[in-house]
């Protein structure tokens, strides 16, 4: 029986060998479970996600894990390299980044209620007294995005604009090309609203949660002209080198974290996560919309 099991395992390994990005991604010397995130503020993210890493590691002792660590990549490219090196076991990222990393073999399997929400939509807004009524009216206008790494306030809306056939260009480049939608980065959500309301930009975009959090006196000066389809808020993807049993064990730990006080505390610390769920078939279908939009992203 044991002999048969070992033989079956060997056969499977031989079969999946070419697809593995690294042979030593999860070997006997690994004694830590690594969570990866993308951010330009590594210190902040390390503080946020370390409790979760520790929480997981503590419950993976029977798998030889002695500690949990967090790695922060400054962008998708760096994370991609880490994935290839096998230096990360579980990555929490947005839908766009998740789909990008999926190309490296990462296996999306968890849906994360980041900042308490399961999904969001991008809202295009203008000043209340603006004449702009729909996305196509933005032609020749200036829109403010959050930053190049944002999903709901850059990638999704930019893709949505392009999907409408609009040409979208950075502000500096667009000055020379008439009829394009010029864009600039405002940095943070609130700035976008202020840029619009202070007439520094004609329109802005961020997700519906950020809209909800806008101060009322600001919000009253703005008007939404378009909403995109829902996009899953945050996803968790396992490195393919993580053994199935380990992955299942980690999934079990994560989907039950919100049931314990310590787990809730660790989740709250990590970007105010309300809970973590396994991806449903419907969720995976929802990712198709994102995949569609990705065609319009540079």
């Amino acid at each position, binding site marked *: 029986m044991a002999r048969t099991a070992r033989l079956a395992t060997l056969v499977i390994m031989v079969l999946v060998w070419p697809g593995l990005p690294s042979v030593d991604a999860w070997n006997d010397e690994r004694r830590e479970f690594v969570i990866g995130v993308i951010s330009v503020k590594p210190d902040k993210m390390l503080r946020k996600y370390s409790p979760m890493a520790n929480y997981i590691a503590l419950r993976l002792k029977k798998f030889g894990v002695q500690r949990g660590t967090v790695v922060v990549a400054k962008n998708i490219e760096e994370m991609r390299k880490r994935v290839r090196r096998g230096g990360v076991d579980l990555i929490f990222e947005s839908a766009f980044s998740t789909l990008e990393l999926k190309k490296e073999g990462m296996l999306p399997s968890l849906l994360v209620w980041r900042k308490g929400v399961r999904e969001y939509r991008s809202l295009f807004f203008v000043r209340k007294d603006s004449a702009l009524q729909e996305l196509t009216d933005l032609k020749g206008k200036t829109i403010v995005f959050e930053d190049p790494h944002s999903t709901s306030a850059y990638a999704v809306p930019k893709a949505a604009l392009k999907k409408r056939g609009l040409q979208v260009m950075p502000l500096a480049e667009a000055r020379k090309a008439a009829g394009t939608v010029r864009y600039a980065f*405002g*940095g*943070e*959500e*609130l*700035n976008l609203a*202020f*840029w619009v309301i*202070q007439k*520094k930009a004609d329109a802005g975009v961020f997700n519906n949660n950020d809209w909800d*959090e806008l*101060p*009322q*006196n*600001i919000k009253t000066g703005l008007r939404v002209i378009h909403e995109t389809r829902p996009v899953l808020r945050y996803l968790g993807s396992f490195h393919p080198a993580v053994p199935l049993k380990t992955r299942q064990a980690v999934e079990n730990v994560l989907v039950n974290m919100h049931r314990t006080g310590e787990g809730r505390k660790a989740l709250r610390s990590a970007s105010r996560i309300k809970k973590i769920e396994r991806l449903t078939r419907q969720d995976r279908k929802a990712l198709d919309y994102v995949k569609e939009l990705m065609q319009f992203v540079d």
Partner: protein
Amino acid sequence: MKQNINRRYAFYLGVMSIIVITIVLLPFLWLVIREGNLLRTEIERTERSVYEESQGRTHFNIAEYLSSNLFVHAYQLDIEGINRLINDIKKALPILSFVVADETGTILTDGSRKNELYGTRLNIPVERLTENTIIAENVSVGRKITFAIRAGNHTAGYGEIVFSDEPLKSAIRKHDAVVARTWNEFKSGMLRLSMVGMLIILVIAVCLSIFFSRTLSKPLLKLQDAANRVAQGDLEHRVAIDSGDEIGELAASFNRMVSDLRLSTVRLQEANSKLKALDQLKSDFISVVSHELRTPITSIKAFAELILIKPNMEADRKAKFLSVINSESDRLARLINDILDLTKIEAGKLSWNITALSIDDVIETSITTFQPLADNKQLTLTAAGEPSLPNIFGDRDRLIQVVTNLLSNAVKYTPPGGKIEVAMHEERIPRHQVVITVADTGSGIPADYLQHIFEKFHRSDDFVADTTEGTGLGLAIARLIVEYHGGSISVESTVGSGSTFTVSLPVETALTAEGAQQSAVARL
């Protein structure tokens, strides 16, 4: 006495100490506390101004820092960046409110999520906000600082911060509490020190009072003891205090007083003895005079009664009785005259007729008087003497009385056939005087009587038994007269051989009645 003085001095020094403490220490304490309070107020005011100045500098520095650091955010309309800065500053500093406005003065954000002040305008005196300038003004809850968010000539907006004055107040309160605590401790210390000082002064005062009172009371007690002993009659006791101060002078005065008292007492005792003796003499004199007067009167009365009872008695017998009466009457008359003379002399009431006189004349007159009597008794009365004796000053009649008295006694006590010799001579040593001697060959005078012979009525009964004619006052009167003249009278006698009376009278003695009287009284 001792306790009273001790208590009194303790009380005096205690009162003096309290007065000194009241006059010196309490005003000193008052002054220290007053100056301390002024100093405390000054310290608090200075510290407050230092705090305020420090706070003002801090506010200026913060405004400067924010002005430059907010510029990029304001210029880029980075509200989130502004909010972060506001909230970071709020976390670090006691800021009640912090708003950032755009270049028109309209508030962009107050740093909160709700941003309720958005869109309201600040009342900013733009012209006053030049570069590196802030406007600071006090508001009810603290201090408001307004500053321009500026880079070069470009103003991206304005900032307005209201700093809470609670930290300043708290710091001042803490500092004031420290100053107050320190001051109170100092004050308590001063009061404790003063109390201890007062206690020490009082203790010293009491000790000094006991010391001084003992110093003072000790000699006073000695004086008291001495006074008691003197009062009990110990006039030999003296106080041995030689302090040289008033107490020493008092002791010396006391000693002098006791010495004087002792001397006076001795004198009084002597005078008393003399008075007693005189009184005794007087009593004796009166007794003798009474006796002497009664004797002739008794005889006169008895013989007169006999004659009256028997009027027809024989003529011879009757004549004999009358002769006795006559003789006793003469005796009585002499006695009375002698007493009168003696009394007058002793009382200084005798009139003296002082003149220059010849002593020869006195002797001659006296002998002439007694020559017949001497002859009758078959006595030899002779006079001998140096010729040309100097005159003396005196009462001639009284001196004749002296000589005749001596001659009378000589005649009286010299038996028939005897000799009486009156002699006189001049002496110059030890003084210039005339000496008269009356010597007889009579029965002589017993030695025990001899020493009293010049006293009044001193006569030996045996010796005078058969000589009732004498009054017993003749020699006493003679002594007084001689002594009045500054002379002396003495007697030498041998029983069975006779007696010699010597009278010495000074030459050139000017006597006056008044001087004579004083002299006589003094001699008495």
